Each structure stands twice: as C-alpha cells, then as structure tokens.
C-alpha cells in the first residue's frame, strides 16, 4: 500500500504553514492517521503536504477560566494522559481512550480527527455533547465555529480551502456533572458502530451521538425528554428519531438505531451515577 508522489514541507511556524496552505493542491498533514490511509488507497492525492503535526504552537492543553483550550496538534495520548483534562473535562479523557489502538492514539491528533470528520470517529460525539468550539485559522483570517455547525456531512466540515483547526475549546466541567462515553465497537477497525457521549448535571443534559448517521449530532430531542422526565429509557427511545442511519456490512440502519438507543440509555445511566 503506497501513496502517490507528493511534495512535503515542514513549516517552522503556524504563519508559514498558513501561507503554504493558501496554495492550491496543498493539504495539511498532522498525525496522518486518517489522511495517509486515504492516500494509500488512492482516495486522496494531494500534491503538497504541509506538515503541521510538529508545530509547537498547536500542541498545548491549558485551562483559561471556565474553558479548556486544546491545541489542534495535541495527540490523543496527550489528551488521554493529561491530568488537567481528566480533572476538568473527563468526558474527553474517557472518549479519547476509546479511539483505535495505542499506535493511533500516540500519533493521531484532536484537530486531525475533527477535520477528517469520519462518521464513525469517537471524538465528534464528545465534541457535540461538549458543544465544543473550533478555532479555525487561515492566511489572513480567524473564526470560531461551534460543533453543530462544524460537522456538515460525511467527511465534510465547515473548513474552507487553506483553513485549518488551530484549537478546540471545551467547557470546564462543573462539580456535580456526570459524564460517560459508551461505544459499540466495529470489531475490524475499532471505530464506533455507534458511540454516545453524555454529560448530565442537575441543571442540564447533553447527548452527542456518533456512528449513526453521516455526521455526529447532538440529540436535543432526547435531551429535552431527559430534562423533563429524568427517565433514561424514555430519552434514549427518541435519540435516533429522524436520523438518516448508516447501513453497512457491520450494522444495518435499524440495528444501528437500536444500538443508539441502548447505548444512550447506558451512557445516561452511567453519567447520572457519576454526578457527584
């Protein structure tokens, strides 16, 4: 499995990277865990790869007030093993520990996973439940987009040409909030057939679902029912309503919907049990 020829640049600064990415045919490369396999299958053939994976400017985890700021180049392992993330955003810690295998987690990045927008990726469920904000940058511009607007369709995001994710911003979890990520694993790839991320407190509930449809989504209908009833089963019953469910050799549409309901119920129950 060999990819096509490409040019490679390793800019020293983010600014330099954005200048290079402004060129047609240029594509950012971070950990390469999504892009390189696509290139080997010759489903992607960028002419020029701009390596942003080693930019220190994109590799950080810090707390600022009530928000966590995570540089897009932060690897899954760095998130998984971060005491700050575990203390202040346990949903991310739990979700990221479910991604792929050690090799993937050592290499793959939070920004790369978000930008690839694989409909079966784990992270997007948490992003939806966390109402994560993505700081997007390009040559001469910067904007912030919320998770619900960022994920547009299968493998499609709000990213424009030449634009990359610089940072993922998630809220610091308040005391009393319980979280859970529950996942049905596709046995061959380790991706999620469905994955459900839940945050629940006495004030609110958030439910993010991945794997079911073309893109991850926040199940607001289920959230509303849970808020009014505190009944996990009733809330879970509607989580797949209206979703255009994926169907493949690993799970049919109807079974996926069923799993989404089961895993939502499990996640809600576990999150509720963890409310301190």
């Amino acid at each position: 499995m060999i990819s096509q020829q490409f040019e490679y640049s390793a800019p020293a600064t983010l600014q330099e990277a954005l200048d290079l990415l402004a060129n047609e045919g240029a594509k950012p490369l971070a950990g390469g865990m999504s892009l390189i396999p696509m290139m080997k299958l010759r489903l992607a053939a960028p002419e020029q790869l701009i390596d942003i994976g080693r930019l220190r400017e994109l590799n950080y985890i810090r707390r600022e007030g009530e928000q966590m700021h995570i540089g897009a180049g932060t690897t899954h392992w760095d998130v998984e093993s971060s005491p700050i993330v575990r203390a202040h955003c346990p949903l991310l810690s739990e979700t990221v520990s479910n991604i792929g295998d050690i090799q993937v987690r050592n290499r793959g990045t939070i920004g790369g996973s978000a930008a690839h927008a694989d409909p079966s990726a784990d992270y997007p469920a948490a992003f939806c439940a966390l109402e994560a904000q993505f700081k997007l940058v390009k040559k001469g511009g910067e904007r912030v987009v919320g998770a619900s607007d960022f994920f547009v369709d299968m493998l499609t995001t709000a990213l424009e040409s030449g634009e990359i994710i610089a940072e993922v911003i998630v809220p610091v979890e308040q005391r009393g909030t319980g979280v859970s990520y529950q996942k049905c694993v596709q046995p061959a790839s380790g991706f999620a057939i469905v994955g459900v991320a839940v945050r629940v407190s006495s004030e609110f509930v958030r439910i993010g679902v991945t794997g079911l449809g073309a893109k991850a989504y926040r199940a607001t209908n289920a959230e509303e029912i849970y808020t009014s009833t505190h009944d996990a089963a009733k809330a879970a019953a509607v989580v797949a309503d209206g979703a255009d469910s994926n169907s493949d050799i690993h799970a049919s549409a109807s079974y996926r919907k069923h799993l989404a309901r089961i895993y939502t119920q499990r996640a809600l129950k576990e999150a509720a049990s963890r409310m301190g």
Partner: protein
Amino acid sequence: MRIVQLTVNGVSHEVNVWPMARLMDVLREDIGLTGTKEGCGEGECGACAVLLDGELVNSCLIPVMQANGSKIVTIEGLSGSLQEAFLQTGGAQCGICTPGMIMAAHALLERIPKPMLDDIREGLAGNLCRCTGYQKIFDAVTLAAKSA
C-alpha cells in the same frame, strides 16, 4: 528526492529518499534494518511498530519526512528480559508479527510496568497475530513484568 536524518538505535543516518517513502521502507531498505515488518501497510496490524521519539507508532503510516530529525528504536535496538520472556513462554510462532508485538509490549511496560491481563489485551490490541491466539504472548508480557 530529499535528505532526511534519522537516529536509529542510537546511530545517526542521513538518507536520500522519496518524500512519500514510508518510514518503514527507509528503515528496512535504506538503513538495512529488516526486523521491522510489513503486515498490512494500512496501520491495522502493528507488525511495523517502532518507537518514534519514545512513542509506539506504526511506521507504515509515517511519511519518512515526518520523522526527519527523530530518534527511532526498532526491534534490533531492544534487548533484555522482554525478549527472553517471549523465548521462555513460546510467544512467537511464524514470527512475522513478533518484532512489532515486542515493540508494543515494550511500550506497554514503559507506561504500565505491572499490567493486569486486561491492560495487556488493550496494550496489544493494535498488533495482530494470526498464529498464537495471543495467549502465550500474554504470558510473555506477564513474565517480563514479573522479572523486571
């Protein structure tokens, strides 16, 4: 073609490569360390696992340019109780997954020196073996942890 510098098992190498050359190929073909194996070339099997700046990675998924200036450890750079444990328990059969498996086990023991069985299962989940059914490999890792 481009020049890259890699420090492999403590030895510095400069090699002239295609930008899209896989780190695995450069290790095997340009540097001549064929202990790193290709099982799938897709990042699914772990046969090509090496340590890149101390972390376990699948070298088939890394364009060599991305490893420029890095420190790499391959199976040829390991020695000690872990490999001895594989000998003692019969952790290898056909051997093609063995170098990657040992690299993964090594990385696991670095992170979790006294792993439970489930830690081992999880730590080796990225390394496919079709021969052993994994059980003797679990024994090897457990033994290595004990004897360390």
